[in-house]
């Protein structure tokens, strides 16, 4: 039941629908009455990606085809998925193996440089013992695009995996991360921010399965929806039997800035072990009217004050990005999306 299967077989009944519990807020079957034709190969220039100045090597997919590949999986690497064909469909998959003790900063971008495309990306990331990965994912899709990005992350003992997703949504969009967490002093940080306007939709779904003792997961997602946009957050943390001393925190906090915007959130902690420390917090609300008036009273026009407070709200996610250059790009992206120079 995946978009990837449907793209391979052309069988639309393979698409997930609202009848699938995990896809109830991101219905693809009801949306896609037909699949657009497969995207053609692209033989022209490919514009530089958002992280071009930071990465020492890159792997690039254009219209679903790998056109550049680096064998390296350490240091600072860019991974780009570029859509350059209008009304076309494409699927891509990629695997990364990070060797024990290595450090990788993965700067991933999904660049919709065309209109109305359908894309499926599947990633496999294996992080070796004691290795460290920071994955920053910047998703900029066309307003009419459908995009599903799924990452399956396998961690060895003592591995560190940190992730930050930044997205502005699409016609329908799902960014899913599944982490197989061995416990064993491995540490996971899963963050995200969605900033949605017009009729855009973004679904940030995560599943972290703690299989062994002494694992840490820290999760913070923040969102802003306005106009008629819809944000979806599904966060599931599973603590398997015997995964004692698991320390897991999940936070999802979102702002709704218009009456017609919507947020659907489902935080889930499924705990089958004793002696764990798990918590989740979920808040959805409007901007603080008192803070807004305070800023206006000091001379800041209302629209600018709203942007300033929203940038500050989302800023907590940006501040958790460890790589400085990526953090700056993320901060600039957030400010640009929210129409603020703060």
């Amino acid at each position, binding site marked *: 039941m995946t978009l990837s299967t449907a793209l391979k077989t052309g069988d639309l009944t393979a698409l997930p629908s609202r009848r699938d519990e995990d896809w109830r807020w991101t219905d693809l079957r009801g949306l896609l009455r037909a699949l657009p034709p497969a995207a053609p190969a692209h033989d022209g220039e490919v514009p530089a990606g958002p992280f071009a100045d930071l990465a020492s090597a890159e792997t690039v997919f254009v219209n679903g085809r790998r056109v550049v590949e680096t064998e390296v999986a350490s240091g600072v690497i860019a991974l780009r998925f570029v859509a350059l064909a209008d009304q076309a469909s494409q699927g891509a998959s990629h695997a990364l193996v990070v060797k024990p003790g290595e450090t990788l900063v993965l700067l991933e971008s999904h660049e919709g440089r065309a209109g109305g495309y359908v894309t499926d990306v599947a990633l496999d990331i294996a992080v070796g013992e004691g290795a460290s990965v920071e994955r920053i994912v910047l998703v900029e899709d066309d307003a009419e695009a459908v995009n599903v990005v799924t990452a399956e992350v396998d961690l060895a003992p003592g591995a560190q995996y940190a992730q930050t997703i930044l997205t502005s949504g699409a016609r329908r969009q799902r960014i899913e991360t599944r982490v197989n967490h061995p416990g064993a002093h491995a540490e996971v940080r899963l963050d995200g921010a969605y900033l949605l306007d017009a009729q855009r939709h973004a679904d940030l779904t995560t599943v972290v399965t703690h299989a062994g003792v002494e694992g840490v997961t820290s999760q913070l997602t923040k969102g802003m929806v306005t106009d008629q946009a819809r944000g979806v957050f599904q966060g599931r943390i599973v603590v398997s039997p015997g995964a004692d001393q698991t320390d897991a925190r999940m936070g999802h906090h979102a702002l709704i800035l218009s009456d017609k915007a919507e947020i659907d959130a489902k935080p889930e902690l499924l705990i089958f072990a004793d002696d764990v420390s798990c918590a989740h917090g979920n808040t959805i609300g409007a901007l603080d009217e*008192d803070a807004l008036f305070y800023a206006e*009273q000091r001379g800041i026009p209302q629209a600018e*004050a709203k942007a300033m407070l929203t940038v*500050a709200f989302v800023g907590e996610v940006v501040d958790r990005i460890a790589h400085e250059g990526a953090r700056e790009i993320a901060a600039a992206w957030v400010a640009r999306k929210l129409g603020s120079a703060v």
Partner: protein
Amino acid sequence: MLKIQNLHARVEEKPILKGVQLAVPAGEVHAIMGPNGAGKSTLSYVLSGRGGYEVTEGSASLNGDDLLALEPNERAAKGLFLSFQYPLEIPGVPALTFIRTALNAQRRARGEDEIAAPAFLKLAKEKAAALKIDFEMLKRGLNVGFSGGEKKRMEILQMAMLSPKFLILDETDSGLDIDALKIVSEGVNALRSPERGMLVITHYQRLLDYIKPDKVHVLAAGRIVASGGPELALQLEAEGYDRYVGAAA
């Protein structure tokens, strides 16, 4: 300077201000005292333009500009500054960023050039030092985790940086110990000038020992029921508000 005529305002359906009449000329400091529920805070919010208050009658102007026709930020650009009884915490916005954003927005609204970053920092350092504010605090989220006294000092710093024409101090003494009260009062007194007016709203006379008013008004049940010199504050302190609450009812 500030002219309030027959001002009536209500919150939801409840009338709070019932014909406030007040004029504060440039260079003068007027105090408004009154019992709880008299409408002191409502008056400051109506003048500064907070939502939720409906003016049903009367007018308020600053230097001839009709305040009630302006958005809150436009009133600020005209020089009106309200010091909050409980200044807000703004997580994620450093005090320096907040003040620079406000200052530049005001300057733009007045058709002036924005202040350059080095000039702004120099000014901020100077003013912070005068108020004994650690400059490092200005790099943290505005007022986040600050004590009551620190928050009030941040208000005074913003006044000093924004250089407003007219100040409304809403219960500025609340939550301050005597040392903080002195620092805050000195900060306010340093801003007294022949071109600037001030309205000091307070429940207690104590603040007026430090910020000496030219005139004192008693606000009770939505109207100014008595006006006099500084001696009126002392009399209120000795006798309480009972007389005026009775007279206004």
